C-alpha cells in the first residue's frame, strides 16, 4: 500500500528532469494541462540556476494531462523532455494525438519508440512517482514551486 503521508520534497536525483546549471535549484511540480502552469512557464524556465520539473497531472481537472505527461516522459527517453514541455505549454490548443505526432516529427524523434514509450507501464509509473512525491510534500495547486 502506498504511503502518501507528509514527507519532505525528495532531494534532486539522477532521474529528475533538470534544465540549466548552477548551485541554486528550484523544484516545480507542474501539470501540463494546467493553464496557470502554461502562463508561468516562460518565467519559470528563465530563472537562473537549475529548474527541476516534476510531474503533477490532475486528471480530473485536466483530462488530457496524463497523456501529455506520458508524452513528455516518452520524449525525455529520447533526450528531448524539455523541448516537448516547451512545445506543449506554448500551444495548449493542439494536444490531441495527431498534434503530438507532429511535435514528435518536429523534434526529430522516433515515432514508433515514442508511441511505445508513452503507453508503457514504466512511463506511467515514473509520472505517478513524481505525483505522489508532490502529494506527500503537500502540493495543492500547480505550479507548486519549492526553492529559493
Amino acid at each position, binding site marked *: 500500500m502506498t504511503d502518501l503521508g507528509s514527507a519532505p520534497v525528495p532531494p534532486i536525483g539522477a532521474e529528475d528532469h533538470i534544465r540549466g546549471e548552477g548551485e541554486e535549484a528550484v523544484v516545480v511540480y507542474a501539470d501540463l494541462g494546467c493553464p496557470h502552469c502554461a502562463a508561468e512557464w516562460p518565467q519559470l524556465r528563465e530563472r537562473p540556476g537549475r529548474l527541476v520539473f516534476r510531474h503533477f497531472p490532475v486528471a480530473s481537472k485536466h483530462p488530457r494531462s496524463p497523456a501529455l505527461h506520458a508524452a513528455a516522459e516518452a520524449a525525455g527517453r529520447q533526450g528531448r523532455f524539455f523541448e516537448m514541455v516547451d512545445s506543449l505549454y506554448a500551444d495548449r490548443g493542439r494536444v490531441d494525438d495527431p498534434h503530438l505526432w507532429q511535435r514528435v516529427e518536429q523534434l526529430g524523434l522516433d515515432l514508433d519508440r515514442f508511441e511505445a514509450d508513452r503507453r508503457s507501464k514504466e512511463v506511467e509509473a515514473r509520472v505517478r512517482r513524481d505525483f505522489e512525491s508532490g*502529494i506527500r510534500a503537500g502540493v495543492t495547486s500547480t505550479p507548486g514551486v519549492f526553492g529559493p
Partner: protein
Amino acid sequence: MISVGEQAPDFTLRNQDGEKVSLSDYKGCKVLLVFYPGDFSPVCGDQLSLYQEVKPQIAEKGVELVGISVDSFFAHKAFQEKLGIDTTLLSDFEPKGEVARAYGSYIDAPLGFANRTLVLVDEDGTVAWTHESPNPGEFPGANVIFDALS
C-alpha cells in the same frame, strides 16, 4: 468545531442524484466528511479534484470520501460532471447549512457557507479526527488526510 471523541451527529441529505443519504448508512465504515464552501468556486474545485486523484488510496485505508456543501443537489450533479469526479456530494441545502452547523463548521452571514473542514467518522459513528482550514481560501493537502489515516 466538533471535537474528537464526540458522537458524530447523524443526518440525512440528498446526494448529487437526489437520493437520500444518511451518515448512519455508513455504519461499519469510516467516512471522511469534506465540508467545503460551494460548488464551482476555484478552490473547491481544486480541492475535490486533488482528492479524486488519491481516492483509490483513501479507499485502500477503508475510508469513504463524502463532500458536503450548501448547494442544491442539481448544482452538485453539474459540479461533479464538470470536475469529472465520482465523489459523493451531499446537499446541505434546506435548512441551509444545518449539518455544517451541527458539526461547528458553518460560517455565518455574510459568508453563509461551511468552512473548509475535514471530519473523520469511525466505524461506530464517533469523530476520530478533524481539521479546519484557517480560512475558506486554503485547503489541506491530501498528505494531511493520509497523516490522519496512518
